[in-house]
C-alpha cells in the first residue's frame, strides 16, 4: 500500500528525469509520460481515509495521509492530469521540444499530486513550490515574447505568494509546536498574530487561486501555454491554492465574521468581474481563463462562508469539495476542447462531436440540471443559507446567468473558429478518446459521487420538476439574454463600450514600471522589478554607489574598522 502512496508523486518525477536523458531511456520516458498520473488515480480510488505513513528522515519529517477532502481533490487532480497527459501525447507529437514540455509538465504534476497526499506543513510547502516553479516551464514552453511576458508575470506573483505562505507557515508551525498539517488551522486560530497570518495565507495561496486582484497572471498564462497545460493549470493547479486555504485558514473553529464577510464580497466581485472581462475577450482560452477567475470567485465565496461559524464550515466544505470536482472536470474539458476544436478540420462528424462535448461542459459550468454543476451550485447555496447572507441566493442565481452568457460567447467563438477551418486533418485517436471520456464523466459524476465519498449532499437521483426548473431557468435566461442583447447590438450597431486587455490590471502596472520614473532621478529604462532596483543603485545621485567605491579602496580599511566599532558601541548604548 505504501508503495502506491510513494508512486503517486515519485512516478512523475522519475519519468520527468528520463525524458531529459538521451537515447532509449528518453524514448521509454516519452512513451510512459502520458500515463504518469495513473498511480495517483488508483490511490484516489482505493486509499483508506484513515491510514497514514510517516517518514521522519524525509525532509523535516514527512507524513502521508488523506482525509475526505484530500481524497476528492486527489481524484479530481489525478483525473484531469491523466486526461491532459494522454491528450498531450498526440497534441505535441510533432513538437521537437516536447521532452522539455514533458519535463516541466511531469514535475508540476508531481508537486500537485504530492501536496494533496501529505499531512505535514513542510512537505506541503515543498510540493507546492515544486509545482509553482515547474509550472513556469510549461507556461513559457512556446518561447515567444508573449510567453515570456506571461511567464515573468506568473513567476513574480508566484514567488511573492510563496514568500507570504512561508511567513504564514512560520507562525503556524511555531503556534502548533510541530508540523502536523491537521492541527495547522487550529494553531492559526489560536495565534497571537492571527489576523496577520490569515492575511498572509489569503494573499499567498490567493495568487494561485487567482483571487481578485491577484488573478492577473491567469489570463496571460493560459492562452500562451500549450492546451494540455492550460487544462491542468485551471483544472488542478488553481485548486492547490484552494486546498492551501482549506488546510491553513482557521475555518470552522470560531466565528470570524469580519473576515468571512470580506472574503465573501471579494469572491462575489471576482465572480462577476471574471464574466465581464471574459465577455470582452476574443481569444477562447483567455475567455476561459477569466471564467476560471469567476468560478474561483464562487469557491472563494464558499471559503468566506466557512469563516462565519463551525456549522457553516461543515456545509461550505462539502460545497468546496463537490465544486472542486465539478470545476476541475468541466474546466479541463473546456480547455482541452479548444485543442480538440483545432483538430477537427473539415470533418463534419468530428465537428458535431466537438461542439456537443463542449456544449455539455459549458452547460455543466453554468449549472444546468443533472450535471455536476447543478450538484455543486446546490451545495454552495445550502452553505450560504447558514451564513446570514440573504442576498447570496439572488447573487448566485445572477452569477449562473452570467456564466451562461460567458459560455454562449465561448461556444460562438469556437463555432466561428470551426467554420473557418476547412483543412483536412488526420484523425488522432488519443486526442478524441480521453476528451470524450472526460465529457462523459461530467455527465455522470453527479450520480457516481455518492458511491465514492460520504458527503451530505442532495440526493442526485431524487429529481423533481421543481428542482430541474430551478436549475434550468438561469441557463435559459442567460441564453435568451445573450441572444437579445446581441440582436439589439447588431440592429443598432452598438459597439462594446469598453475593452479590457488580457491581464487587465497588469497592463497599467507594467506601463508604470516601464515609464521612466522620476523616482530618485533614475534615467535608465526600467523593464523589470530587478532593473528597477538596479536602476536606483546605479543612479549617480544615490549615495550607496559612492559608499561602495570608497569601501573598495584598501586604504580605508582601518577607518572602517574603527567606525564599525563605534557604530557597534553606539548600538549597545541604545
Amino acid at each position, binding site marked *: 500500500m505504501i508503495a502506491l502512496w510513494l508512486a503517486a508523486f515519485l512516478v512523475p518525477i522519475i519519468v520527468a528525469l528520463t525524458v531529459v536523458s538521451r537515447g532509449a531511456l528518453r524514448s521509454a520516458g516519452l512513451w510512459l509520460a502520458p500515463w504518469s498520473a495513473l498511480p495517483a488515480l488508483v490511490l484516489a480510488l482505493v486509499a483508506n481515509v484513515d491510514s497514514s505513513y510517516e517518514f521522519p528522515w524525509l525532509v523535516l519529517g514527512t507524513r502521508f495521509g488523506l482525509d475526505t477532502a484530500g481524497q476528492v481533490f486527489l481524484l479530481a487532480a489525478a483525473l484531469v492530469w491523466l486526461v491532459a497527459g494522454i491528450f498531450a501525447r498526440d497534441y505535441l507529437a510533432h513538437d521537437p521540444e516536447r521532452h522539455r514540455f514533458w519535463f516541466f509538465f511531469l514535475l508540476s504534476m508531481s508537486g500537485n499530486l504530492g501536496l494533496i497526499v501529505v499531512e505535514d506543513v513542510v512537505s506541503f510547502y515543498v510540493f507546492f513550490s515544486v509545482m509553482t516553479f515547474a509550472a513556469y516551464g510549461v507556461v513559457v514552453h512556446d518561447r515567444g515574447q508573449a510567453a515570456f511576458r506571461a511567464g515573468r508575470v506568473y513567476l513574480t506573483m508566484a514567488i511573492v505568494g510563496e514568500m507570504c505562505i*512561508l511567513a504564514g507557515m*512560520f507562525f503556524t508551525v511555531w503556534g502548533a509546536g510541530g508540523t502536523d498539517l491537521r492541527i495547522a488551522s487550529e494553531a492559526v486560530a489560536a495565534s497571537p498574530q492571527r489576523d496577520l497570518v490569515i492575511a498572509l495565507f489569503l494573499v499567498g495561496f490567493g495568487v494561485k487561486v487567482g483571487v481578485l486582484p491577484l488573478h492577473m497572471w491567469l489570463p496571460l498564462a493560459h492562452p500562451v501555454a500549450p492546451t494540455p497545460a492550460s487544462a491542468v493549470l485551471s483544472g488542478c493547479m488553481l485548486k492547490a491554492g484552494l486546498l492551501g486555504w482549506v488546510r491553513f485558514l482557521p475555518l470552522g473553529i470560531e466565528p470570524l465574521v469580519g473576515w468571512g464577510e470580506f472574503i465573501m464580497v471579494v469572491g462575489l466581485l471576482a465572480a462577476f468581474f471574471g464574466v465581464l472581462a471574459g465577455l470582452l475577450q476574443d481569444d477562447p482560452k483567455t475567455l476561459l481563463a477569466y471564467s476560471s477567475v469567476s468560478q474561483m470567485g464562487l469557491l472563494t465565496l464558499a471559503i468566506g462562508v466557512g469563516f462565519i461559524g463551525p456549522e457553516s464550515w461543515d456545509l461550505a466544505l462539502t460545497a468546496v469539495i463537490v465544486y472542486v470536482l465539478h470545476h476541475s472536470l468541466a474546466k479541463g474539458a473546456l480547455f482541452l476542447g479548444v485543442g480538440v476544436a483545432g483538430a477537427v478540420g473539415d470533418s463534419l462528424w468530428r465537428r458535431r462531436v466537438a461542439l456537443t462535448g463542449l456544449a455539455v461542459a459549458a452547460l455543466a459550468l453554468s449549472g444546468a440540471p443533472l450535471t455536476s454543476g447543478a450538484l455543486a451550485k446546490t451545495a454552495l447555496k445550502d452553505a450560504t443559507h447558514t451564513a446570514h447572507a440573504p442576498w447570496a441566493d439572488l447573487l448566485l442565481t445572477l452569477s449562473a446567468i452570467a456564466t451562461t452568457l460567458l459560455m454562449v460567447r465561448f461556444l460562438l467563438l469556437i463555432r466561428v473558429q470551426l467554420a473557418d477551418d476547412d483543412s483536412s486533418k488526420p484523425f488522432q485517436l488519443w486526442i478524441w478518446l480521453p476528451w470524450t471520456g472526460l465529457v462523459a464523466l461530467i455527465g455522470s459524476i453527479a450520480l457516481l459521487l455518492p458511491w465514492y465519498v460520504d458527503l451530505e449532499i442532495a440526493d442526485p437521483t431524487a429529481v423533481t420538476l421543481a428542482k430541474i426548473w430551478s436549475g434550468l431557468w438561469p441557463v435559459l435566461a442567460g441564453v435568451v439574454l445573450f441572444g437579445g442583447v446581441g440582436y439589439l447590438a447588431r440592429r443598432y450597431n452598438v459597439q462594446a463600450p469598453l475593452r479590457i486587455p488580457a491581464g487587465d490590471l497588469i497592463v497599467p502596472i507594467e506601463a508604470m514600471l516601464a515609464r521612466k520614473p522620476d523616482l530618485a532621478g533614475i534615467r535608465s529604462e526600467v523593464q523589470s522589478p530587478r532593473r528597477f532596483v538596479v536602476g536606483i543603485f546605479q543612479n549617480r545621485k544615490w549615495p550607496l554607489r559612492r559608499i561602495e567605491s570608497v569601501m573598495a579602496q584598501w586604504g580605508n580599511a582601518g577607518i572602517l574598522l574603527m567606525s564599525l566599532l563605534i557604530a557597534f558601541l553606539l548600538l549597545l548604548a541604545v
Partner: protein
Amino acid sequence: MNWEFWLPLLVLASSLVTALANFGLDEERHAARNILNLTGATVKLVLVGIIFWGEFHGRLYEARWEFLPGLDLALRVDPLALLFATLSAILWLVTTIYAIGYLEESPNRRRFFGFFSLCVTATMGVALAGNLITFLVFYELLTIATYPLVVHEGTEEALKAGRTYLLYTVGGGALLLTGIVWLYGISGPVEFVSGGVLGDVAGTYRYQLIAIFAIMIAGLGVKAAIVPLHGWLPQAMVAPAPVSALLHAVAVVKAGAFGIVRVIYDVYGLSFSASLGVLQPLSVLAAVTIIYGSLKALSQDNLKRRLAYSTISQLSYIVLGTTLFGPLGTAGGLVHLMHQGFMKITLFFCAGNLAETLGIHDVHEMNGVGRRMPWTMASFTVAALGMIGIPPVAGFVSKWYLGLGAIEAGQQWVIPVLIVSSLLNAAYFLPIVFRAWFREPDGEWTELQPRGRLEVGWMLLVPPVATALLALLAGLFAGWDFSPLGLTQEIIEDLYAQ
C-alpha cells in the same frame, strides 16, 4: 600515546605534510603532484571519518601541550569542531579534484598546491582549536596562506586585490589579537566550553567584556564579510575558480563566521551574551549585511562578482542564526554553515567551468548555455534554487529554522528580512537560470569549443555535480540523524543543557 591524542594531530599533519611535500616537488612532476594531493585529501577525509565515528561513540579527542608558560595550544574535537571539520574535509577533496582539472597546462602549480594545502591545514586548525590562542594562531596562518592563492595569476588586478585582502585581514587579525589579550588579562586563558566561561567575572568587568566582544566580533567580522568590512571579498574573486570556491565556501569566510559562533557560544556563552545585550546589535548588523549584499548582487553583471556579493549576504545568515536565542535559531545558523558551503562551492565550480570552457565571465553572455553544458548548469540551478531557499534544496532548511528561530527568540522583525532577502536572491539568481535554459544560444562561444563526449573534462564536471547533489540530499533527507541538520542537534543539546 593514544589515538585520542594523535588523531587530531594527524588530521592537521595530513595536509601539512602534503603542503611541504608539494613545495619539495619539482614544478614539472605533475603526475606525482596530483597523486600526492589526492592522497592527502583522501587520507584526511578518512581520518575525519574515523574521528566522526569515535566521537559518535563517546570518545573525547584532545591534543594539548604548553608552548609558553601558562599558555596551552589545544586541539579538541567537540561536535561544533566536527561539523566544520567534516565540511572542510569533504569540500577539500572535491576542490582538489577540481583544481587539478582546472590548472592543467598552467604554470606555478607547485606554489599553488603548496599554499592550497597549507590553507586547508589552517582551516582544519581553526576547526579543531580548543582555545582562543590556538584559534588565533591558525586564523592568522590562514590569512597568510591564502594570500599567494589570491594573487596566483600575478596580474595587476590580482596584486591589487591581494593588497586589499591583506590589509583588511591583517587589520582584523590585529583587532582579534587585541581582544584576546585583553580578555586573557581579565580572566586568564580561555578554553572553548559550551555555554561559555565568562560567567564568573561578569559582575566586575561587564563594560570591559562588552568592549572586548565588540573588538573580537569586528576582528572576525572582516573574514565573515560583515558590512561594512566586506570590501575585500568582491575584489578577491580575481583568484582562480578553485580558490574562489574554497574561499567562499569553507576556508576564509567560514573561518570568520565559525569564529563568531565560537566566541558567542563557547567563550561568552549564549545566555551571558544575551544578558550583556550584545546579541541584538549583532543581529541587526547581520540583517543589514543580508539585505545589502543581495542589493549589491543585483547590479553585478560579472558572474563571479554577483556570487561574491551573494556570499556576503548568505554568510550573515549564519551570524544571524547564532544571535537568535533559542535552539531553532541556533540550528538555522549552524546548519547554514554546511549548507552554504555545499551550495556556494557548486556555484563557483560552475562559474569556473563556464569561464574555462566557453570564456563566459558575464551574466549577459550566458544565453542558452544550458544546452552546451547541461550538467554544469543543472548543478548551478540546484544550488541557485537552494540559495533562494526553494525546497527541497538545503537552503530551505536553513531558512525554515531561521524563521522559526526568529519567532522563538521574539525577534519577529527577522522574518521580513528573510523574506526580502529571498525575494532579492530570486531576483538575481533566477535571471541567470532563465538565460541559461530558456534563451537561445547567441554568445561568441557558440562557434568556439565544439562539444566533446562530455561537456567538459570529468575533473571539472564531477565536483559541481557532486556538491549540488550534496546540497539537494542535505535538504531532502534533513530529518536523518547524520544529515547536516542532524549533526547540529548534539551541539544544540549541549548548548541548551544548562
